[in-house]
């Protein structure tokens, strides 16, 4: 969807979206003269609105939260790959890993 449709979906002003993009809370696809937004960006926008509205977080706080949320998802992605890799190992290796982790 384009900028206008995005703003209409979330009921926000264009200037608000521009601020989000400048802060890199939202990273649209495409070039600046024809940005487009996906469902993931809408869901992210809803999270930002929840942070502002339901949780009373200010702009500086949103910056911190968004950054940590992105770190968390990237970590989860790495963890998922790691778990997938472990699942393909020989059962003896899996058991050894399980024992080592339980000791830690």
């Amino acid at each position, binding site marked *: 969807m384009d900028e206008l449709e995005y703003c209409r979906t979330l009921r926000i002003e264009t200037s608000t979206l521009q601020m989000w993009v400048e802060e890199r809370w939202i990273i649209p696809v495409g070039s600046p003269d024809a940005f487009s937004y996906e469902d*993931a960006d809408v*869901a992210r926008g809803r999270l930002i609105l929840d942070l502002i509205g339901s*949780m009373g977080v200010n702009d500086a706080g949103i910056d911190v939260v968004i950054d940590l*949320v992105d770190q*968390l998802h*990237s*970590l989860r992605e*790495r963890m998922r790959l790691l778990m997938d890799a472990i699942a393909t190992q020989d059962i003896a290796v899996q058991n050894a890993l399980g024992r080592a982790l339980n000791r830690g």
Partner: protein
Amino acid sequence: MANPYETLGVAKGASQKEIQTAYRKLAKKLHPDLNPGDAASEEKFKAASAAYAILGDEDKRAKFDRGEIDETGAGQQQRSYYRDYAADQASGARYHNAGGFADFGDRDDIFSSFFSGARSRGNASYQGGDLQYRLEVSLREAANGGKRTVSLPEGGTLELKIPAGVRDGQILRLRGKGAPGHNDGPAGDALIEIHVLPDRQFSLEGDDVRTEVPISIREAVLGAKVEVPTLSGAVFLSVPPNSSTGKTLRLKGKGFPNKHGGHGDQYVVLKIVLQGTPDAELNEFMTNWEAGKSHDPRRT
């Protein structure tokens, strides 16, 4: 659905402010995007939001208290959360942030590339980063523009066209000259910050430039045509007879390029300079010069 007062954990007589505070506390704890791995958080967050939709609104709360609406009174729209998309290759890559584990990549073991991201996310492609450089140019180069071949710290060179009229601090963007993209993604941009070096001859004041030009005492008294440097090469300028040090002459359109496609002006400040060695003839003339004896420039 449970009683909304119980859901939010507030007393029936709680103030609106207390209800808001209780809801904010729950929202921060239960929001699905702040608990990406907890499937149950979505239901709990929904329940808290539904409760707040009634109690957060004084009218609805009053209706609920009078029994006119029940706890399902405020319909909740079905919605999706960012966590549902974050694992998606394409959108996840755009928001990828390795800040939480980049240091694991420094370990000298077989997992280092896994954490440093060298073995990157599947086959998602994304744009390379922007690279920043700083380039020093002379004032004349800034005024006239030109081409420069810049050697990059990481090897290789960059052909750079400096536009005429570039200003100190201005950033030139070279599309696609930054870090290469990942998996056939587009390369980032090179951002070059221009630093205009101060000039010994010219000082810049807005769009205008100022130069000091030395003239002889003869030229000062009798007037002369003198050669004056400008940013775009030397020109001849008439010094009127009887010019003092500090007299300022204007060369229209010989200044720095301005925003409107024209140029500022150049101001030429005259400075009388005597010969290095005293001259007997001039000494004799000055000694016998009657009008010169009574002229006191500090007293006019």
